[in-house]
């Protein structure tokens, strides 16, 4: 660089040969012999400041773009990496169940105990109200088939749990069906001390469950007296209130509470809630209900669920829920390499479900074949172009650049036109009589089609770097070798070829990086046997909606590409990428 004056290392004190210089230098030197700049600060410091200003200016120019790329591109990639391990849906949808399941020993036969089912009831009830249980079902269905329909079916019939006791309660006093009575009971009347705690707890849970915003005025505050006596009922009512106001957009006091609220009340009364000190609204009714419920059987959650669907008694289903309850999981990655989480850690999937290792291998293999055929086809062309006179080479270069500039979709459709059974190549072969009309070659929707089309599409990316390396090789070297008696082959192989290797390396890595992540061309000409891992990723994003698995597959692919990118940077340098 020409701009060397600002570098402090190269600045010397002026030579003091000339007396005039000496006098001048004396003005610019302080008492310790340090150079001073015009404004009196030591030269070193003022140069350092100038350097700092330059650095800042450069960074200020780069900053907008850097922020732009970080937000629009890097953040999505990081988000995808996060999604490949993220698994909050289970603990968000079934928070209480997950907590109680953590103590359950999955190696025992059968389902977990009553307590787990009880928590599961309350979780599932809210989830079913918010229609989130089907999402959880489809998530867990990736791991254990049948869970999706199990959740969907149970979501419909979860209202029926404890029906008998609720009927008994409502038969005892019609007030239990009256929304105004419930509202008064829960708020604790006019002069009660309200507490916001149950609302806050439920708000947090609902927000995690649905991802929506539940903050704002509910029009309901639980009374502190009733909260002390019947905490669970108040909590359920608070959840009901929040959901009614924000999801259904109704008024709390005008809606009859959920069955879950009544079930909680029945449970708490049967468990012997101490009503002796309670004198708020509805105290009479509560005492009467407690007396009546003493004769009723307890609500059996486990039996109710198993009656709903006997699969709830299956050990495997509960084990799946337990295995996938942590907020982070390596399950998607295991799935991406044809493994699954078993009882004792990772285990291979059943043979008939193994597909991803094969797809990765195929992607690698086909990328290598494409890369190899690009080298084979690209090398002679690059050699020819770099050894022809400039004018001819430029003309021929157009033949390379035109495909490079032509839309990818155009080239892919061109290959579809060429390769299909009623296509141009087959027609020409039939017309020439080389192929029978009924024996037309199958060249599309298989690996052959993908390889031919992608070789054609990526060939310019191989030729251009090769050409730029080969055009720097001096022709005199080969001539010298020839004049020293080397045969044409030896001169090429021992002298020319080693000098062209960097071009091959640059081109191959570029082509390989591009090939390994290709999506469009394999999708159109690849059929079923010629598709790549990227087609599977696209399938999981748009069709099967298994985003976690798509993210895990993408992460593995990205890691492979980044390793290659790093190699490319080491061999070629990113700064040396040239276009056109």
């Amino acid at each position: 660089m020409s701009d060397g004056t600002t570098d402090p290392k190269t600045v010397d004190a002026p030579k003091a040969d000339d007396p005039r210089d000496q006098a001048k230098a004396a003005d610019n030197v302080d008492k310790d012999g340090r150079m001073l700049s015009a404004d009196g600060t030591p030269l070193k410091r003022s140069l350092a400041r100038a350097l700092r200003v330059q650095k800042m200016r450069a960074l200020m120019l780069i900053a907008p773009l850097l922020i732009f790329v970080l937000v629009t591109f890097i953040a999505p990639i990081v988000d995808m990496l996060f999604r490949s391990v993220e698994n909050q849906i289970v603990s968000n949808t079934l928070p209480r169940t997950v907590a109680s399941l953590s103590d359950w020993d999955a190696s025992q036969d059968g389902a977990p105990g009553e307590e787990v089912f009880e928590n599961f009831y309350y979780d599932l009830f809210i989830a079913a109200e918010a229609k989130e249980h089907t999402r959880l079902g489809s998530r867990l269905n990736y791991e254990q088939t049948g869970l999706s329909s199990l959740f969907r079916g149970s979501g419909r019939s979860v209202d029926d749990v404890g029906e008998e006791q609720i009927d008994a309660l409502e038969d005892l006093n019609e007030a239990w069906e009256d929304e105004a009575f419930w509202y008064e009971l829960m708020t604790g009347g006019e002069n009660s001390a309200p507490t916001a705690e149950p609302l806050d707890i439920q708000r947090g849970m609902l927000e995690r469950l649905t991802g929506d915003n539940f903050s704002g005025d509910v029009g309901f505050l639980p009374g502190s007296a009733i909260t002390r006596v019947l905490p669970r009922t108040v909590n359920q009512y608070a959840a009901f209130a929040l959901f009614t106001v924000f999801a259904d957009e109704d008024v709390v006091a005008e809606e009859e509470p959920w069955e879950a609220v009544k079930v909680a009340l029945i449970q708490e009364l049967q468990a012997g809630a101490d009503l002796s000190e309670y004198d708020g609204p509805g105290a009479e009714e509560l005492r009467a209900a407690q007396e009546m419920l003493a004769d009723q059987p307890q609500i059996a959650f486990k039996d109710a669920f198993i009656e709903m669907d006997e699969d709830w008694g299956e050990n495997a289903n509960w084990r799946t829920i337990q295995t996938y309850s942590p907020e982070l999981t390596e399950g998607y990655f295991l799935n991406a390499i044809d493994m699954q989480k078993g009882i004792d850690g990772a285990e291979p999937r059943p043979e008939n479900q193994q597909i991803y290792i094969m797809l990765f291998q195929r992607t690698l293999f086909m990328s290598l074949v494409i890369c190899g055929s690009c080298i084979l086809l690209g090398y002679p062309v690059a050699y020819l172009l770099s050894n022809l006179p400039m004018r001819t080479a430029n003309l021929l270069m157009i033949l390379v650049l035109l495909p490079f500039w032509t839309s990818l979709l155009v080239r892919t459709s061109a290959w579809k036109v060429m390769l299909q059974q009623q296509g141009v190549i087959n027609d020409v072969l039939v017309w020439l009589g080389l192929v029978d009309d009924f024996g037309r070659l199958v060249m599309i929707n298989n690996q052959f089609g993908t390889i031919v089309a992608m070789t054609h599409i990526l060939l310019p990316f191989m030729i251009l770097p090769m050409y730029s390396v080969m055009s720097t090789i001096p022709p005199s070297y080969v001539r010298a070798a020839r004049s020293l008696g080397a045969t044409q082959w030896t001169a090429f192989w021992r002298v020319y070829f080693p000098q062209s290797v960097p071009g091959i390396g640059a081109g191959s890595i570029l082509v390989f990086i591009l090939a390994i992540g290709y999506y469009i061309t394999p999708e159109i000409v690849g059929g079923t046997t010629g598709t790549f891992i990227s087609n599977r990723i696209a399938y999981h994003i748009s069709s099967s909606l298994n985003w976690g698995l798509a993210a895990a597959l993408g992460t593995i692919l990205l890691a492979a590409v980044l390793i290659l990118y790093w190699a490319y940077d080491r061999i070629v340098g990113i700064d040396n990428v040239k276009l056109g």
Partner: protein
Amino acid sequence: MATYTLKYVEKKPLSFSVPVVAAAGAFAGIFVGAAQGSIWQGILAGAVLMAILTFLAQGVLSESMEKPFRWGMVVLFAAGGYVFGEIPGIVVGAIFGVFYGWFIYWIGQGRYREKLLPYLTPGQVLGHFAFRVICGMIFFFLITPIVVVMPLSFNAEDFFTFTPEMLSFDPEGYSLKHYRDFFTSPDWQQALWNSVAIAPVATLLSVSFGTLAAIGLSSEHVPFRRAIMAILISPMIVPLIISAAGMYFFYSRLGLQGTYWGVVLAHAALGIPFVIITVTATLVGFDRSLTRAAANMGADPVTTFFRVQMPLILPGVISGGLFAFITSFDEVVVVLFVGSAGQKTLPWQMFIGLREQISPTILAVATILVSISIVLLTTVEFLRRRSERMRGLSPG
């Protein structure tokens, strides 16, 4: 200064030229014979015919008869073609006639030696031309698919291949109906309009941010230069499907998925590496003393940028912008995920058409796009040369 080069062009003996041309004739005979039913008859007929013609041209007729003889061959072969394959046969026959007429004299008069070093052995000459033929075949492979699409787009039928009417040059076989379809179908027009609405805005974003950053990157004291460069280039390196997946997830969190601005931002990010690469390459040759001179004469940094630096790096900026434009205009994977039906672009519409194979309108669109890319290619090439000339890198 006059140069004297030793030429090795002389008339070849008949014992050389007759067998060589006969062998070439036999090769062509394979195809003609196969088309007519018997490969062996074709080979034999081709060899005998070419041997006779070569003997006639090189052994009997004088050299001044070259022109009439070659025309005669064109007519003869065209007539032969008509006998075998009617109108398409005439064209193929005429091409054969031109080629073999040239070939007989090229071999027979030893003209193939004209541009070669005189001391090459016959084997080396053969190797040289074999290499040329192989390269020719590779160029053929590169260009044919693109060229084949063009005439097919004028097909009167809804086929993806040449119909007999097209091959016999019957005007009935050609029509502009696929172009009419493209210009009248609301789907295609909407897609075209979307592409035109998205690509320039994305280009503008990436060019303005990218040029600033490239100028910043080209100053010599940039901390973390490598890391910054790696981040800025990464949209080009990361496979599109991964970018698409990540953007799909992230933009749906932000509510940008399925919106116009979501697609524009995504495309701008994808175009940035191209701008960075071309503009930094232009700045390598930029003479920094010019900006210092401008500052010396009292210009503030903004004036210096627009009056001194910008005009000089403009070719690089424009060709970077063209790259960014074509990236956005040609992009399908990301828009497929980040966009919704309202942002359906031209490549997306083509992708749908190809997957479901509905109509050859795709070929008409393809032809239009190839024409556009030829224009862009010419522009970029022109700009590159101009930029090199301005920086004094090449004399031409």
